[in-house]
């Protein structure tokens, strides 16, 4: 069959294999020359061709074929990324042949595309008024696109790039970085120079602004803030106002944390019409529906986490919100849930004591108290309850409720556990009021009230881009570039501080709080990527010391930069009375927390930098109420091409399911190490067969097995230790994803009590190791052989529970001459 290709203009032409081959050859430039890139991709492509394929489909088909080989060699990902970039260049800039031409097109189209964006009302007019555009255009460097992996190019293109009113893509990746840099320099005296500084950092993927900022910076709708934190008051007007605020904030792409602790419980009296309340659950369902109705930036569903203290009478129902079965009107399918846990509760769990649930209407001040004061008042209410002085209460075993939480966490990944006393006692910013909740991703800890919807603005340093070849004579091949790390931290803090003066929201309480507190959260990503390059295992002392040291340096530079900004631009309005104004730094809060709790907090207090002079500096003024927070970086981590936040490698080969599709991720550090040993080709099928677990592969050396564990093989206590060490330097919190193989509730209780004991403020999603898997397609499978293996393993007492009744190898129809003959 002869294949014809339908061109964009509708004309047909004969399929030209040569043209495709040249494109593949170009895309594999500089990669391993021993691999026959062109032959392999071209021959697999031919299997999929059909008559009448369009040029656009053909481009996509080539990329798909390159991608399906990533399992054998991650360099195919580079080929796919380059092929996709080429289609983006052609769409945005037009046809080109050479690299020089491509650079020229980047230069020439920058200004016209900016102008078009402004004319179509998409971009901020100031982008063409305030900047020396030729100088910016001259700095654009398309070679930096080579830093992007395929999933990074896809994510940039699908989610962050600006499109014209008619759907034309207006941005290539370097235009995108520059537009974001410009959008965050609008308030500077010399915006051009500052934008160049921000561009330099972000286009090299050294740090990235968070998602909302990347989407909206420089646009005519600059809702740049990432996180909003608010609560519902126990009054119908405020509930209605909250629904309205959730709608507006969702429209502007922000994620929301919303506390419902103050709402009176079900059955509680309502004086105005002499009836009783339905409790908070139906209102939560209402908000959940709002999230689905108002899509974020037209792309995703809204995202929100409800917080509730676990002494609320309706807490048992709160635990069921994420269950799939049951009354759909008492469920929240879209919104997430998190529980706000006190030290009093944790102590009652440990001593197997009772736990009392109350109606907030009767115990209204509990939500405002924390630490020892909370405990004292709680115990008074317990006495009141037992003395019959309360209208409503319920008594259960603390341990039973803790187990119910963990059971729900295991079955539905909710609620996330967050510790209110650790958060409040380790905060430097709660001089304006109690912190009542965290946010959508459990890394933000800001006080709020009826007049303040708290706002946080995030960026994340990519640690793997601060690992450089070692110059010393020691054994280590790589080392940390601390000077670059400091520079990244300082630049990022300035960028975040600018954001506050540029961003807009449609909720006046949010704009007010943003101006009064100027809260920012600088975090990190690429922790595991970095330690793998350094040759450290996740659960090693070296890794713990690494995160401790790196976070200390980043925190020191960030705090110092904020004191400098305070000198230049003034301290934040709520500074007086803050922990900072009393000369406290994050490290000092551990002892305060411990003294209140009366139980040791088990984390090292070691420090290496000159914090005494920093204590003096912060007293004089800070530009920002908060500085540090480690966000999950699930999306920007993809753009940066590194492991998100402090997350481990899920496994050494796994798939990511994102809104841009499903992608295979092969750990490139492992592949590089195995290629050096000349072993990759020999073991890659085994690694795929075991779904990315290298421990059972006998041929591999121990140090490889040590460094490359799956997230379920790493001790859960290692996740806690890494978080506890990082938390020493972080004034807000950490989105700590957890991974567990064990489904034993006793083990889970130990792990989560361990988090509390280490002074960890919050935990995030819990990933359970999947126990069921479909029959694999691309590796050799023979279930009859597996069964006899399992049977002999059982017979030998190794006890792998897969199970076949009969011991001898099973041959099925292999008894006859016919079966072995074949055809």
């Amino acid at each position, binding site marked *: 069959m002869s294949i014809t290709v339908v061109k964009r203009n509708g004309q047909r032409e004969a399929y030209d294999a040569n043209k495709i081959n040249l494109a593949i050859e170009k895309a594999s430039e500089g990669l391993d020359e021993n691999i026959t890139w062109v032959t392999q991709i071209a021959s697999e492509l031919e299997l*999929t061709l059909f008559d009448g394929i369009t040029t656009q489909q053909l481009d996509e088909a080539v990329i798909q074929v390159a991608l399906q080989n990533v399992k054998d060699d991650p360099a195919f990902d580079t080929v796919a990324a380059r092929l996709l970039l080429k289609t983006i260049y052609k769409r945005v800039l037009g046809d080109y042949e050479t690299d020089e031409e491509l650079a020229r097109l980047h230069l020439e189209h920058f200004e016209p595309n900016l102008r078009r964006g402004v004319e179509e009302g998409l971009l901020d007019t100031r982008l063409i008024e305030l900047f020396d555009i030729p100088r910016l255009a001259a700095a654009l460097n398309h070679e930096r696109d080579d830093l992007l992996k395929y999933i990074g190019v896809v994510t940039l293109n699908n989610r962050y790039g600006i499109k014209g009113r008619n759907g034309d893509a207006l941005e290539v990746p370097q235009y995108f970085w520059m537009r974001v840099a410009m959008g965050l320099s609008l308030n500077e005296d010399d915006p051009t120079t500052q934008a160049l500084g921000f561009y330099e950092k972000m286009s090299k993927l050294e740090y990235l602004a968070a998602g909302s900022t990347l989407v909206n910076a420089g646009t005519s709708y600059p809702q740049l803030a990432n996180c909003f934190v608010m609560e519902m008051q126990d009054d119908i007007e405020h509930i209605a106002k909250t629904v309205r605020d959730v709608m507006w904030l969702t429209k502007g792409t922000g994620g929301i944390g919303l506390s419902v602790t103050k709402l009176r419980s079900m059955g509680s009296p309502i004086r105005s019409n002499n009836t009783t309340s339905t409790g908070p659950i139906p209102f939560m369902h209402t908000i959940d529906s709002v999230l689905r109705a108002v899509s974020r930036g037209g792309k995703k569903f809204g995202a929100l986490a409800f917080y509730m203290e676990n002494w609320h009478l309706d807490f048992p129902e709160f635990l069921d919100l994420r269950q799939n079965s049951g009354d759909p009107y008492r469920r929240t399918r879209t919104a997430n849930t998190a529980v706000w846990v006190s030290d009093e509760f944790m102590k009652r769990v440990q001593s197997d004591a009772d736990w009392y649930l109350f109606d907030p209407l009767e115990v209204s001040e509990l939500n405002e108290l924390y630490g020892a004061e909370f405990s004292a008042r709680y115990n008074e209410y317990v006495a009141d309850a037992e003395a019959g002085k309360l209208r409503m209460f319920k008594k259960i075993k603390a341990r039973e409720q803790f187990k119910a939480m963990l059971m729900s966490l295991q079955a539905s990944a909710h609620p996330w556990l967050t510790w209110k006393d650790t958060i409040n006692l380790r905060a430097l910013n709660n001089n304006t009021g109690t912190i009542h909740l965290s946010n959508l991703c459990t890394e933000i800890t800001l006080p709020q009230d009826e007049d303040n919807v708290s706002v946080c603005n995030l960026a994340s340093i990519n640690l793997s881009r601060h690992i450089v070849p070692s110059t010393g004579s020691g054994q280590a091949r790589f080392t940390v570039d601390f000077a670059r790390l400091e520079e990244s931290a300082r630049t990022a803090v300035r960028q975040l501080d600018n954001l506050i003066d540029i961003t807009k929201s449609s909720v006046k309480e949010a704009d007010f709080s943003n101006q009064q507190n100027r809260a920012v959260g600088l975090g990190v990503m690429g922790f595991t990527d970095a330690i793998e390059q350094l040759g450290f295992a996740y659960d090693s002392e070296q890794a713990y010391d690494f995160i401790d040291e790196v976070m200390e340096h980043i925190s020191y530079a960030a705090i110092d930069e904020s004191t400098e900004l305070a000198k230049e631009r003034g301290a934040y309005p709520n500074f007086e009375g803050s922990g900072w104004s009393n000369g406290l730094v994050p490290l000092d809060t551990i002892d305060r927390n411990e003294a209140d709790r009366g139980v040791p907090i088990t984390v090292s207090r070691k420090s290496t930098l000159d914090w005494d002079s920093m204590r003096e500096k912060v007293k004089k003024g800070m530009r920002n109420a908060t500085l540090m927070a480690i966000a999950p970086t699930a999306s920007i981590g993809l753009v940066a091409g590194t492991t998100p936040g402090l997350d481990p490698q899920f496994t050494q080969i796994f798939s990511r399911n994102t809104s841009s599709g499903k992608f295979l991720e092969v750990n490139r550090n492992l592949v590089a190490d195995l290629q050096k040993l000349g072993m990759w080709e020999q073991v890659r099928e085994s690694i795929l067969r075991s779904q990315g677990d290298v421990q059972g592969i006998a041929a591999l050396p121990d140090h490889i097995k040590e460094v490359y564990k799956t997230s379920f093989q790493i001790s859960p206590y290692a996740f806690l230790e890494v978080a506890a060490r990082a938390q020493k330097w972080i004034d807000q919190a950490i989105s700590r994803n957890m991974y567990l193989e064990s489904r034993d509730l006793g083990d889970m209780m130990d792990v989560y009590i361990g988090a509390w004991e280490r002074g960890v403020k919050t935990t995030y999603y819990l990933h359970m190791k999947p126990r069921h898997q479909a029959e694999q397609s691309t590796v050799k499978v023979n279930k009859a052989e597996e069964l006899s293996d399992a049977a002999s393993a059982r017979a030998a007492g190794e006890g792998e529970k897969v199970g076949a009744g009969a011991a001898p190898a099973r041959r099925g129809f292999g008894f006859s001459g*016919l079966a072995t003959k074949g055809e």
Partner: protein
Amino acid sequence: MSGILGTGVQEGLLLKPVKYQWAMDLYDQAVANTWFPNEIQLDQDIADFKRMTDEERHAITYLMSYFNPNELLVNKALAFGVYPYVNAAEAHLYLAKQMWEEANHCMSFEYVLETFPIDRDEAYNAHVDVPSMARKEEFQVNFIKRMTEQTLDITTTEGKQDFVRNLVAYNIVLEGIWFYSGFMVALSFRQRNLLRNFGGLIDWVVRDESLHLKFGINLILTVLEENPDLQTPEFAAEIKQMILDAVEMEEEYNRDLLPSGILGLNANYINQYVKYLADRRLEELGFEPEYKVSNPAKWMATANDTYELVNFFESTNTSYETNAKSVTGSKSE
């Protein structure tokens, strides 16, 4: 008869002692893998469906039209041809769970058929109206009929042979080859970022079917082991030929599925995959492979073979289990 086959109504009423541990293990796994189609929301998929090409929409509709009635056909094969002739209580437990799963699969495809904007009459009638589809159904029905319309005596060699024939027809051929090639086609859309939530539904179905296959293959191997009278070259040759015939039927069906071709997929490509699958099933039954072709769908490594890390804000996580309670260990008491 003391083996796995038998018809005594009053036998096999007690589970203990468990003789066929594999059946018990599969039952436990199946229970842990319980899901409901309404956990999947199809809003985005409907938007995708509307912007797909005519041939792509045809392929999806055609797949649904085939899967929907054939899920229930598997249940008939189990109810008439397997359950009555098996004696072990642990096997009955598993079969009961599998039958619920097939019902659940049927309801899942029903859910999709009722949600997607398609010509439903045409879709529901296709298994009768489209000759290549009707032919596959007839093949199955013939083997089931032998178990019902004639009174089958499971103690005779001929009875046992019919039992194995039916088992091979619904399990190896229908579930193990025909369904599996359909799963590959269905999942290929997700690789192009289309029908992602439908893809999640298929993930669940594939996990179930993987267990169905394990059960079926175990049962066949057990019956063969326990009954030397079935171990004849003639019978082996007949079974092998059934599988080769099934491949030929599937090739014709796939040419109707994709008359021209869509991005990344055409009938020849799918049929190479069918042959790859058929070789795998032949080897699992102890035969030599017939076609010796490579797997053209290397991307199944991404789509199906690896653990999936879900961005919770963007996708339904299909990895959570509904019965956390059943696994609490003694330490927590």
